[in-house]
């Protein structure tokens, strides 16, 4: 790790600790235009052998040319035998469906192109989505085509003949029915009413429910406080002050889409008011990066910090009724940061309009106390920001931790000898001190799963599970709305894949029924008509079926757990917490290339997890980022690399779950698979390896004990290990940096050091300030927060002065009433070397609001899915060759232990005077008549001059053929013999190619690519409008990133239309454009980030 002297570097903004310390390595990395071209990084092939290979290739190319230039390969047209009615070829049909994730329905629209599901979008009508979709949901379509999915019914690893009709299998299923109370069903959390209905038919079978990441602690806490199972429902749009104790409601929460949208409403200073977010947390969550005040507190002291808040509140106003609580929690009086007194003041000043919430990892007592405080402050009164949904959950259901413990105990005692594991991967993700694999040994077991995974290997039978895009189902969204899912495609498996609901029907009903029948029966049982059912299928949900919101007051007798808030001095040196991963969740998406390659929104790590720690912790241990360390909890040791992330509380180590899926990446003997020896003989050829997940990261479940799941953290002994591990992070990639030796007119700038100038420019790239400052003088806010406010370019209107054919562009009111604080000088322009472009039609533009952008990265995945962007793998990311067209730049600023964070989405700015266009020797990037910088892929010869000349570093080069899967598939289809061979082997080749969007060209090796503003969507919308004989309306064209943005931070439209949303945003008081001094005139504008910290003193 770099030596960092935070006093002397004086950097205000930094992307990483290397940046802050300005190490020579970092300077070299940035100085190179193409760090990814460093010869030693590129290849071990010597120049001589390269020439030899090339010579041979040319010879072959010549021969191919002789035959190949006659005509390109023959293609087939394969129409439907019977085309479904009302289909328009080449246009996706949208189906409203839903993905159940951890027992909560995520409502989505799935686009089906000629029968292939190709893209997942949010369901605009559903109150929990409003058109947005999470990264998880959007990437889930790739899981459908995962070539590693299991496709057959397996007995001890071998496919059985006849599949569902196999005599042994049928006999096994019958024996399950006969086994009565000796049968255990281990299910994932589910809110499916159909599943619940069939559960009632399971008779004497015992039921266990387990999720490695659940809100059970919250459920238990509220059950204690209110005496019945309730689920909190927050209205962030009604809250002025939000205090979160480790609650990541902006991303990992099941209702994060709704919560983000509501939260963002309070971040744009409408009417001069903004909400204020205080976050107390140990790790650095995405919610923490968006906080106005963030208090890093080591994990074990977060409960005590809430106790202290209660004490401070009681001190300020004893009429709140917090006296008894303060007494019980008196031991917390000096725990946590002293700033809790300020937080208490802030809360009291906003009684009835504030929210105190706790994260799902926090122990039950914390949740109970948080809601007691809400009640005391009047936040949970009717129409207040805090309400509670009556879920009607089973009060008696044990927590997930208790359930899995109970199952192992019952297996050990012999009370249970037959186990049906319906989904999930509990052998991998059960608590470290619960040895499920050993308990399953020798029992009659069945596992329903997407992959042959750790759990399958511990079970006798394996049945392929149907993906949600292949199956009928129903579930409730976070607010309880009845949401259905419907299949878009038949299961892509040899033996019919089934859902847990269907398995229950097979096992426990007299006649196995299809899920469609079961789900429809569930819905129509209440007397609903067939028309109503059709409407539900169309909408994806039944309106007004959310749970009733109630506003109870806590009952007495809940305070029992409060004494536990005070941290007890446990063994160990550090607190370890286990977090939900922003990419692979609990590990279920580990085999998904899109998610693995997505840079983590906070750490920017791809393809791995690591032991995250703060700078002080790392210094004390004497380790650097990427050094291996050993973390020991309850006698189990996990070796993994350290990664220093500014802002993580001192003494805390955070490990994201869901990685470490292979024995290969770990030393021999490491019980990653925990496969019981001698039980199951899996044929190596049949056990489909998880090709993507293999070798990524380290398995945190190995040291995650049941106790730490209840408490939210564990005490661990941490020691430096041996060796290092290479982590591919994108945090320093594509840094916007310019040589600083410039002077402008007669205003000479004395740049004492380039670094200083870069820092000054950074305030231009990322303009931000406080609400108070904004309200002082909204019109000149942007220029006032820029350090270089007095530069010549600021005196000109910075709007792109196109010579509009209608002449109405010039001097339209905008200049007079404040262009982001730039004083109006009418038509005066910067002198430009370029001729101005003329526009007669549309002028597309985008506006990104940095105040509402939370950095969640859903846009990155949306872009990847929409534009067929390749996955390059960890090694290539390490070389800086990731292909994402939109990236989220994350900047730290301020103190290295308590930094502030800002996120800035960066895509092609579609410059008016585009530097890329003027250097292309073959005119492969040209200006369109609507202002886009078009890429003409088949002209591109790969000089990369354009990327060299791009000030925003948004161009991406295909160093390799990232779409080999398409070639594989085409080769296979053109070679009949090979095709038959592969078909006979049962291998799935090229199934991922089905996910490609056929409206977007696949880019081959050697071609530059970049954001197109989703030009295919623009063209489709234009053609549709013309065919209908109407004008394009504002909102007809929505790029994939803007469509999925949970906070609506990205707005796109026609700048020629003065009434369009984007035109208004671009002339907003907070609007500014990047790098005005180089006069490239970007089409993107940004809106300055506002923060709302408390007044000092």
């Amino acid at each position, binding site marked *: 790790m770099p030596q960092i002297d935070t006093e002397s570097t004086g950097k205000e903004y930094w992307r990483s600790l290397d940046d802050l310390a300005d190490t020579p390595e970092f300077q070299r990395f940035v100085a190179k235009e193409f760090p990814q071209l460093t010869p030693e990084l590129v290849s071990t092939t010597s120049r001589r052998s390269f020439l030899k290979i090339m010579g041979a290739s040319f010879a072959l190319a010549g021969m191919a040319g002789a035959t190949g230039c006659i005509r390109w390969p023959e293609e*087939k047209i394969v129409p439907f035998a019977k085309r479904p009615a009302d289909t*328009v070829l*080449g246009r996706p049909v949208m189906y409203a469906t839903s993905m159940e994730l951890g027992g909560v329905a995520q409502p989505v629209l799935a686009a089906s192109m000629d029968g292939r599901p190709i893209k997942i979008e949010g369901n605009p009508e559903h109150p929990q989505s409003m058109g947005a979709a999470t990264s998880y949901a959007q990437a889930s379509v790739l899981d459908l085509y995962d070539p590693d999915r299991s496709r057959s019914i397996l007995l001890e690893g071998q496919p059985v003949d006849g599949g569902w009709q196999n005599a042994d299998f049928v006999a096994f299923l019958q024996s399950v029915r006969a086994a009565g109370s000796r049968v255990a069903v281990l299910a994932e959390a589910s809110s499916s009413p159909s599943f619940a209905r069939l559960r009632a038919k399971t008779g004497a079978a015992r039921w266990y429910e387990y999720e490695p990441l659940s809100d059970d602690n919250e459920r238990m806490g509220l059950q204690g406080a209110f005496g019945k199972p309730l689920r909190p429902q927050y209205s962030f749009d009604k809250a002025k002050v939000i205090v979160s104790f480790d609650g990541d409601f902006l991303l990992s929460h099941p209702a994060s889409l709704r919560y983000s949208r509501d939260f963002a409403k309070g971040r744009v200073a409408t009417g001069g008011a903004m909400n204020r977010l205080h976050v107390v947390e140990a790790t650095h969550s995405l919610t923490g990066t968006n906080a106005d005040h963030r208090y890093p507190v080591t994990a074990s002291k977060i409960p005590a910090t809430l106790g202290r808040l209660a004490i401070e509140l009681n001190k300020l106003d004893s009429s709140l009724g917090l006296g008894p609580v303060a007494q019980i929690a008196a031991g917390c009086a000096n725990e946590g940061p002293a700033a809790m007194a300020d937080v208490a003041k802030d809360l009291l000043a906003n009684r009835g309009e504030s929210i105190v919430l706790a994260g799902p990892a926090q122990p039950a007592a914390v949740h109970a106390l948080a809601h007691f405080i809400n009640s005391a402050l009047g936040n949970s009164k009717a129409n207040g920001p805090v309400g509670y949904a009556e879920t009607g959950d089973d009060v008696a259901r044990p927590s997930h931790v208790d359930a899995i413990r109970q199952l192992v105990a019952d297996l050990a005692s012999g009370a249970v000898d037959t186990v049906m594991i319906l989904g999930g991967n509990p052998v991998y993700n059960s608590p470290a001190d619960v040895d499920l694999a050993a308990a399953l040994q020798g029992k009659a077991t069945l596992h329903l799963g997407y992959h042959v995974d750790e759990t399958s290997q511990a079970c006798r039978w394996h049945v392929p599970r149907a993906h949600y895009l292949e199956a009928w189902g129903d579930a409730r969204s976070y607010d309880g709305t009845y949401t259905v899912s419907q299949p878009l495609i038949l299961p892509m498996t040899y033996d019919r894949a089934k859902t847990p609901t269907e398995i229950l029907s097979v096992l426990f009903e007299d006649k196995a029924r299809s899920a469609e029948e079961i789900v429809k029966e569930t819905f129509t049982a209440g007397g609903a008509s067939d028309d109503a059912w059709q409407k539900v299928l169309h909408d994806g949900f039944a309106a007004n079926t959310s749970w009733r919101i109630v506003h109870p007051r806590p009952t007495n007798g809940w305070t029992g757990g409060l004494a536990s808030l005070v941290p007890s001095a446990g063994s160990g040196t550090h607190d370890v917490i286990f977090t939900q991963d922003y990419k692979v969740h609990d590990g279920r998406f580990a085999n998904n290339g899109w998610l693995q390659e997505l840079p983590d929104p906070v750490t920017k790590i791809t393809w791995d997890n690591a032991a995250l720690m703060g700078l002080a912790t790392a210094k004390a241990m004497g380790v650097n980022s990427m050094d291996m360390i050993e973390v020991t909890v309850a006698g189990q040791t996990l070796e993994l690399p350290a990664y220093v992330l500014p802002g993580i509380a001192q003494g805390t180590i955070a490990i994201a779950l869901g990685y470490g899926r292979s024995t290969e990446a770990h030393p021999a003997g490491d019980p990653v698979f925990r496969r019981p020896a001698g039980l199951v003989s899996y044929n190596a050829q049949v056990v489909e390896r998880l090709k993507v997940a293999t070798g990524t990261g380290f398995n945190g479940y190995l040291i995650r004990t049941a106790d730490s799941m209840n408490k939210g953290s564990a005490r661990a002994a941490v020691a430096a290990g041996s060796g290092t591990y290479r982590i591919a992070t994108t945090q320093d990639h594509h840094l916007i940096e310019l040589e600083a030796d410039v002077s402008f007119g007669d205003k000479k700038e004395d740049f004492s050091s380039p670094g200083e100038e870069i820092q000054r420019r950074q305030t231009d790239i990322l303009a931000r300030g406080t609400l108070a400052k904004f309200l002082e003088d909204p019109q000149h806010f942007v220029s006032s927060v820029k350090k270089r406010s007095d530069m010549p370019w600021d005196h000109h209107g910075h709007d792109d002065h196109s010579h509009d054919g209608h002449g109405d562009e010039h001097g339209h009111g905008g200049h007079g009433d404040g262009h982001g604080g730039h004083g109006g000088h009418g038509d005066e322009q910067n002198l430009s070397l370029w001729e101005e472009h003329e526009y007669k*039609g549309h002028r597309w533009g985008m506006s990104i609001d940095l105040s509402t952008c939370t950095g969640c990265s859903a846009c990155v995945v949306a872009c990847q899915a929409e534009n067929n962007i390749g996955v390059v793998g960890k090694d290539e990311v390490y070389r800086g060759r990731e292909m994402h067209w939109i990236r989220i730049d994350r900047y730290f600023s301020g103190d290295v232990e308590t930094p502030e964070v800002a996120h800035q989405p960066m895509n092609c700015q579609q410059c008016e005077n585009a530097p890329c266009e003027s250097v292309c020797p073959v005119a492969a990037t040209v200006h369109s008549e609507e202002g886009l910088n078009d890429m003409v*892929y088949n002209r591109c010869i790969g000089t990369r001059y354009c990327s060299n000349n791009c000030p925003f570093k948004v161009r991406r080069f295909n160093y390799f053929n990232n779409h080999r899967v398409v070639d594989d598939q085409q080769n296979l289809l053109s070679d009949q013999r090979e095709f038959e061979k592969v078909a006979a082997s049962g291998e799935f080749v090229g199934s991922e190619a089905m996910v490609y969007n056929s409206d977007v060209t*696949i880019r081959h090796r050697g071609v530059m690519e970049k954001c197109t503003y989703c030009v295919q969507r623009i*063209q489709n919308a234009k053609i549709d409008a*013309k065919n209908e004989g109407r004008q394009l309306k504002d909102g007809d064209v929505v790029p994939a990133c803007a469509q999925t943005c949970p906070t609506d931070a990205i707005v796109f439209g026609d700048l020629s239309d003065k009434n369009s949303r984007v035109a208004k945003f671009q002339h907003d008081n907070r609007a500014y454009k990047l790098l005005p001094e180089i006069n490239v005139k970007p089409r993107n504008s940004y809106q300055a980030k506002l923060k709302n910290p408390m007044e000092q003193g």
Partner: protein
Amino acid sequence: MADNDQAVPAQRELIFPPWVDQLFRIASAGGAFMGAYVVLLVTFGASPRNIAVGYMPEQPVPYSHRLHVGELGLDCRYCHTNAEVGAKAGVPPTSTCMNCHTKVRPDSDKLAPLKESYEKGTPMEWVKVHDLGDYAYFNHSAHVRRGVGCATCHGRIDTMEEVFQDQPLSMGWCLDCHRNPEPNVRPLDKITDMTYQPNAEEGREVLRQLRGWTPENRERKIR
């Protein structure tokens, strides 16, 4: 060493004999001719006008457009239903064929693949005749609904026993029309008319009406 020194004539310069000049001229002329020949050969020989036009692959069923369109008078859109609404015109599903052929010549050997497809539900595999580059974004509806007739690009389908490519479908050919659409567009009720001859006069009138639709069409070029 001494012997060798004597063997080499001292300081004698190499002088080309005069006929080398002549050879050089001939070789230069020949080289220039060959260069031009290769350029011309590639330019014209490999142009879509010569390579693509006339391409007539064998189809699994010898479907005759001449019979169905020319003699029986089926409208293009009876089968290619998608042309007016989508990017692709669409080859009809087997079921469209069988609307008639369950009654008309149901036992013909030539129709056997069709029958099999219909009964088993397996698709027919037709060979693509008009094959644009994968990088080309072409939308049928945008053309068909703005006065570009079927015959303009596909030729006199009604006279083709087997379908062949009639026009080069090259980029230059596209641009010829996009830069000068008047002589190539026709009234919207003549779109599928195989015998209509587009002319600049009527084309201008069609464009005048269509351009009222959107502001982008006010300029001369059609995007």
